[in-house]
């Protein structure tokens, strides 16, 4: 199945998957693992790492290790919500546009319009409109990230619907929903999985980006917000503070996104070895 790829690459998904599982485990157990409640004033402000605080404390005296652990959960939940919603939209719009002739023109037009609106500006406006909050962030990210894969799903579903056995099933009196469920969905689902993984990666990056720009949701604890408060400290790079305050969340983001793109890319390659990764809209 991994034709054309050197053997070394075949091991990557196992590693990536293991890393993802580990991170998910941390997210689930964050409450138990964290030595302090993440918001509690647990020590002196801006304290260097010590036995009591392995990663030191931030400007409000909150334990950074606890924030990093709990941040895993917020980052993942937010990312999963946005990616899930986005995937659902891609799938629904794509399948509907393929299966329902009347909806085709308006849905294709909608897809193209959203695709043509510049992403970052639209997101900035959207967030200003609704105010930063976990829900508006997730909705906003989903709203701008669905169209690319809606196109992919649509062309794939159209291909399926034209096949002989589908025609035969229809002639035999199978209902539309039945055809969608038994014939189209199984073909489309793997694409949607890839889409989910890659969008999850993208949302985590965007969350960090928006947080760094001051557009994050301040009521949550995420890696992006940890970075933002760290960069708000004027002496971050004048002292060793960067090493224990800014570096851990940055590394966490990097590890998670690398693992996600490795997993997603492998999925894509597995699905379509000829075109390979990077050609699809996976990078959105």
């Amino acid at each position, binding site marked *: 199945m991994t034709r054309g790829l050197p053997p070394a690459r075949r091991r990557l998904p196992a590693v990536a998957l293991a890393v993802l599982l580990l991170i998910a485990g941390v997210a689930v157990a964050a409450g138990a693992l964290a030595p302090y409640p993440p918001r509690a004033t647990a020590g002196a402000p801006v304290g260097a790492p010590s036995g009591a605080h392995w990663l030191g404390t931030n400007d409000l005296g909150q334990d950074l290790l606890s924030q990093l652990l709990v941040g895993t959960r917020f980052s993942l939940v937010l990312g999963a919500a946005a990616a899930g919603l986005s995937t659902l939209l891609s799938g629904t719009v794509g399948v509907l546009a393929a299966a329902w002739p009347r909806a085709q023109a308006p849905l*294709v037009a909608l897809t193209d319009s959203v*695709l043509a*609106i510049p992403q970052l500006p639209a997101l900035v406006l959207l967030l200003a*409109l609704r105010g930063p909050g976990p829900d508006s962030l997730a909705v906003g990210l989903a709203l701008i990230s669905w169209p690319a894969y809606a196109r992919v799903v649509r062309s794939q579903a159209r291909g399926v619907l034209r096949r002989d056995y589908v025609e035969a099933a229809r002639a035999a009196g199978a209902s539309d929903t039945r055809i969608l469920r038994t014939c189209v969905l199984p073909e489309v689902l793997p694409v949607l999985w890839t889409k989910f993984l890659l969008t999850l990666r993208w949302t985590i*990056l965007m969350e*960090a*980006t928006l947080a760094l720009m001051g557009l994050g949701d301040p009521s949550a604890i995420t890696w992006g917000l940890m970075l933002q408060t760290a960069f708000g400290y004027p002496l971050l790079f004048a002292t060793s503070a960067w090493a224990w305050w800014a570096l851990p969340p940055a590394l966490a983001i990097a590890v998670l996104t*690398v693992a996600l793109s490795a997993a997603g890319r492998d999925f894509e390659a597995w699905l379509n070895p000829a075109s*390979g990764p990077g050609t699809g809209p996976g990078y959105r």
Partner: protein
Amino acid sequence: MAGPGRVAVRTLALAVVMVVVAVVLPRALPGSPLAAGGDVAVPLPAAVEAELRRAYRLDRPLAEQLAYEVGRLLRADLGRSLATHRPVRAMIAERLPLTALLVGTAVLASAVLGGMLGTIAACRPRAATSRLVEPVIIGLGALPEALVAMLLIVVLGTRFPIFPAGGAGTPFLAAGGWSWRVVLDALWHAVLPILTLVIGLVPAFSLLARNALVPVLAAPFLLAARGKGLPPARVLWHAWRNALPPLLTLLGLRLAFAMTGAALVERLFAYPGVGSLLFEAVARRDYPVLQGVFLVFGAVMLAVTAVLDLVAVLLDPRLRGDRG
């Protein structure tokens, strides 16, 4: 319907959508350009506020504003900024070349660099370069752009100040007239922002090139060519010709996305491009400027997608007629 005609109709329809979005969206934002959240408690004097409200038609209903703005756009007039009172066209015109410099150089450099790395990876998958360089590139590309930018600023711009950490040029260097120093100074200031963009862009190009080349290199016609004893360089040349179209598509899309995506990089480097203008305009709720920037971004996106669609249609006869 014939392919090119379809592309034209689609582009026109999208342009209309875009104009409406560009005019309505900024005005739908909460907040007002007259109370834009500055850190002073005493607002604009009443007379100033009344004058601005009237001059910029903020007192009219939205539909009337939309009609007025569309009429003005048809005369190729983008209006004046509510904050600086300068013509929006001039504000965008002085920044567009800077954004184009950043994005154009970054995308081209990434395409070349990524193409090279992808070729090496495709031809010699076991070579040390492919096995070591690629994971590093992918790892770097997986970092948030903002973080990469900040690290570059701190390490190369501040700790070891080899490159300027912000701005598009040494202030007032151009005052003495244009010279090679001015040009080099501008390039010098663009190094770090371009580097940030390149780090994010190279993995996509490298992977694409590799994956486009791998199947082509294994394709029967190339095996035949190799069997005939064609030198490896020629084989590669043939492979490249077949791998080029997807690379060009990605190039165009990246160019369009990077135009708007560079906004963040511009802001972090205090680089006065169109993107940083967008952030300033959002903060000030400067409707005319927001509108103008949106239209420019939209036009770039539309132009690139239209050209790509046309090229696809012209290159591939199968796509003519019913497509998409």
